[in-house]
């Protein structure tokens, strides 16, 4: 091990422990967890994550002592091939400490929340043993994410990148044998596979970019690459950055690879909050910010990145406004907000992008966890309702969801006596906002923290989302008008769908028995929510756009280079604030002035086709099915059914291989090569020798005198030649 050049390395030696602590946690739970109580398992996992947070804070102290200078800690050698040398080196600078504080901080809160959430979730789904597995995966995720954000080279970043993808796959498919409503089905598995495959397309781009980078720069280490940027042709850098963009669209759920993220809501809610809102999906934003010297040198690529982000922001926001599932709304909202971040880093506003990443981690984790609390409350309410009144089931409105989930569960697990009681009811969807209503009375804490998240996300000043979103909009208004208008309209939709959600979920009358009997969640769930709510409200203080503040901007300057600190622009801020308030007002008029009633169609339905598009995700899944998946399935079926034994044996083996072999041996070798070639040559030689001999034997007539005559003639000829030549 060697220390970096910096004199005061402080706590730098702790950097590898960012990864080791979660790994230790998951090892303890894996090896000894079967003896632990749930409380113990959760405590080990949370402590492991909390220890990583403590390390992050200590590293932050160290780095701020060095004014944000990058420090590197080499843990081990990895590979040295020719000029390429890659090591397990941890890079601690202002950008990575910002990321690690968010990941470990929000991650720890979500670990604590998950103790309460999973306690109930595994019981609703009748598989208590899976509690331990969840926390093992969660710790694995923290470890992989730490590798991603502290890696000192693109390859180490890629190790983390793949690691978090694996954890995403494992956790989306956590209830792999169920569907969203806990019925036996493979739909959760399909969601996990979809997430994995979409990410694979993106990872392909990442790898190609890395290969080009190695070819052009001869190194994958950040500093060495960035130093050489001026010496490399812009075309090569454009190729690298655009292939990286493909990776970003996969990991950060941008158009066109975003389709996996809404389906990833199949994972338990803490997973949605941690992986699919706060941390993993921001890896793409981190990648672009980390590669700032590359992107800044090619404005063409920057424009494409910014437009991809802006289009995603608006596109996903329109879909979010048409959803009825509480988590789906938040999922599309996440895609939309990621679009804001990608647009920001694409425009070179790296600080604004990272700032929004941080505040978004706070309020979107908060919203997801609160939504999880709402869903648990609904489940409890449904449970009570079912027990109190067997004859009077609440009528779920969704006809397509036919079976009672407990009933379906009973098929899998016959020990479930409650399930048998509830047979033949309509299925109850605890996440459907049309079943909710009036929850602010039954779940007051959840309501207030949800409100905090909602105002932060909607961009109402002075809550955190306002400051970060406004900074992005301000940068956009200066650098990219098209992106600015797309993002502004997206901001309008953001406020609208959040208002719609609040009115539908917490206001009005309960539209389902479960909502009427819903119960507030226990403290292990609400305390992390309150902490996150405080962060969501106050998070804007990180980077206030006033003289003397810009703290995050100055902090990141050491890593990202010169950063322009923009003052508050009243015009941009005013427009976005007015639009947000207007959107909330419109949503109030539509959903709260006359409360959304049971069995009512959505007021947005008057938009006709437009609403249908929003509700059906603009048929993007269907389009992808049509363009990619169905042809793929057809090819698969073709391979599976047409290219079968008969194909291989009768056709390929008999006709192609044997036929070719026979043709070569009989016609080619036997007839042409052997008979007409070698045989004919040998026979011809014999025949020719024979006929020559037949001619020559006549000379040998046995008369000595004729021999003598020929000698004489020969001598005469030779002498004649010699004399007269």
């Amino acid at each position, binding site marked *: 091990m060697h220390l970096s050049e910096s004199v005061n390395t402080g706590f730098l030696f702790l950097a590898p422990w960012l990864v080791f602590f979660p790994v230790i946690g998951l090892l303890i739970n894996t090896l000894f967890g079967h003896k632990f109580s749930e409380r113990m398992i959760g405590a080990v996992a949370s402590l492991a994550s909390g220890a990583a947070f403590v390390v992050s804070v200590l590293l932050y102290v160290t780095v701020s002592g060095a004014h944000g200078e990058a420090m590197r800690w080499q843990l081990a050698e990895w590979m040295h091939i020719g000029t390429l040398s890659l090591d397990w080196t941890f890079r601690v600078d202002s950008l990575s400490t910002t990321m690690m504080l968010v990941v470990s901080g929000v991650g720890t809160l979500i670990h604590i929340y998950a103790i309460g959430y999973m306690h109930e979730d595994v019981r609703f789904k009748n598989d208590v043993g899976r509690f331990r597995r969840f926390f093992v995966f969660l710790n694995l995720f923290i470890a992989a994410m730490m590798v991603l954000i502290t890696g000192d080279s693109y390859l180490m970043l890629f190790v983390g990148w793949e690691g978090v993808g694996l954890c995403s796959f494992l956790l989306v498919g956590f209830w792999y044998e169920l569907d969203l409503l806990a019925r036996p089905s493979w739909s959760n598995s399909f969601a996990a596979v979809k997430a994995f495959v979409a990410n694979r397309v993106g990872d392909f781009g990442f790898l190609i970019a890395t290969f080009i980078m190695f070819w052009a720069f001869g190194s994958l280490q950040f500093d060495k690459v960035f130093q050489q940027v001026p010496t490399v042709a812009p075309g090569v850098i454009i190729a690298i950055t655009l292939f990286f963009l493909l990776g970003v669209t996969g990991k950060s759920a941008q158009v066109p690879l975003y389709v996996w993220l809404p389906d990833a809501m199949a994972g338990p809610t803490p997973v949605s909050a941690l992986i699919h809102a706060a941390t993993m999906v921001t890896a793409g934003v981190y990648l672009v910010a980390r590669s700032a010297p590359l992107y800044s040198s090619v404005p063409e690529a920057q424009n494409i990145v910014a437009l991809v982000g802006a289009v995603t922001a608006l596109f996903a926001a329109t879909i979010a406004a048409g959803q009825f599932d509480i988590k789906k709304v938040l999922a599309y909202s996440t895609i939309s907000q990621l679009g804001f971040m990608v647009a920001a880093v694409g425009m070179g506003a790296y600080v604004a992008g990272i700032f929004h990443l941080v505040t978004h981690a706070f309020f979107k984790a908060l919203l997801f966890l609160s939504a999880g609390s709402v869903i648990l409350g609904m489940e409890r309410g449904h449970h009570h309702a079912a027990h109190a009144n067997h004859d009077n089931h609440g009528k779920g409105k969704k006809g397509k969801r036919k079976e009672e989930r407990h009933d379906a569960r009973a098929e899998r697990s016959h020990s479930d006596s409650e399930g048998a009681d509830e047979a033949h009811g309509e299925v109850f969807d605890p996440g459907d906002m049309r079943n909710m209503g009036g929850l602010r009375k039954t779940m007051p804490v959840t309501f207030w923290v949800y409100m905090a998240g909602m105002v932060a996300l909607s961009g109402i000043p002075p809550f955190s989302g306002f400051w970060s979103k406004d900074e992005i909009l301000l940068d956009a208004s200066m650098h990219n008008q098209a992106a600015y208008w797309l993002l502004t309209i997206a901001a309008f939709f953001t406020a609208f769908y959040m208002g719609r959600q609040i009115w539908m979920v917490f206001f009005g009358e309960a539209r389902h028995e479960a909502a009427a009997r819903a119960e507030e969640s226990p403290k292990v769930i609400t305390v992390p929510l309150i902490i996150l709510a405080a962060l969501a409200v106050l998070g804007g203080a990180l980077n206030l756009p006033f003289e003397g503040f810009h703290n995050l901007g100055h902090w990141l300057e050491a890593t990202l280079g010169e950063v322009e600190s923009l003052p508050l622009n009243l015009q941009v801020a005013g427009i976005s604030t007015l639009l947000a308030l207007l959107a909330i007002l419109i949503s109030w008029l539509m959903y709260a002035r006359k409360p959304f009633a049971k069995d009512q169609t959505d007021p947005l339905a008057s938009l006709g086709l437009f609403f249908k598009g929003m509700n059906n995700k603009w048929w993007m899944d269907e389009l992808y099915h049509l363009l990619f998946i169905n042809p793929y399935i057809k090819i698969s079926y073709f391979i599976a059914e047409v290219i079968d034994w008969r194909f291989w044996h009768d056709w390929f083996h008999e006709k192609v291989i044997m036929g070719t072999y026979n043709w070569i041996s009989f016609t080619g070798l036997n007839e042409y090569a052997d008979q007409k070639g070698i045989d004919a040559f040998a026979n011809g030689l014999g025949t020719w020798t024979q006929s020559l001999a037949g001619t*020559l*034997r*006549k*000379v*040998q*007539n*046995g*008369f*000595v*005198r004729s021999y*003598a*005559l020929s000698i*004489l003639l020969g001598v005469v000829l030779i002498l004649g030649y010699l004399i007269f030549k």
Partner: protein
Amino acid sequence: MIPVDYYIILSAILFTIGVLGVLVRRNALIIFMSIELMLNAANLAIVAFGSVFESFSGQIFVFFVIAVAAAEVAVGLALIVEIFRSKRSIDVDQVSSLKG
């Protein structure tokens, strides 16, 4: 001094007689004698040229030819004796069992 032409002409006549004798006669002994005749025709020519060019080489050559001819006669006569023993004849046309 007899001009060298005479020797040469004599030599040519002797050689021609020898050739004709080999070609025409079937008696192996006669053919043998004809061969000797040709050898001596050649010897005559060689010594004639040797005296013209005042060189002993011709005479030395001739000694060698006479020695080789003697050896040849020894081998040849032995062959003829053997042929006579198996064929009871020395007619060379009879010795044709190897003809093609």
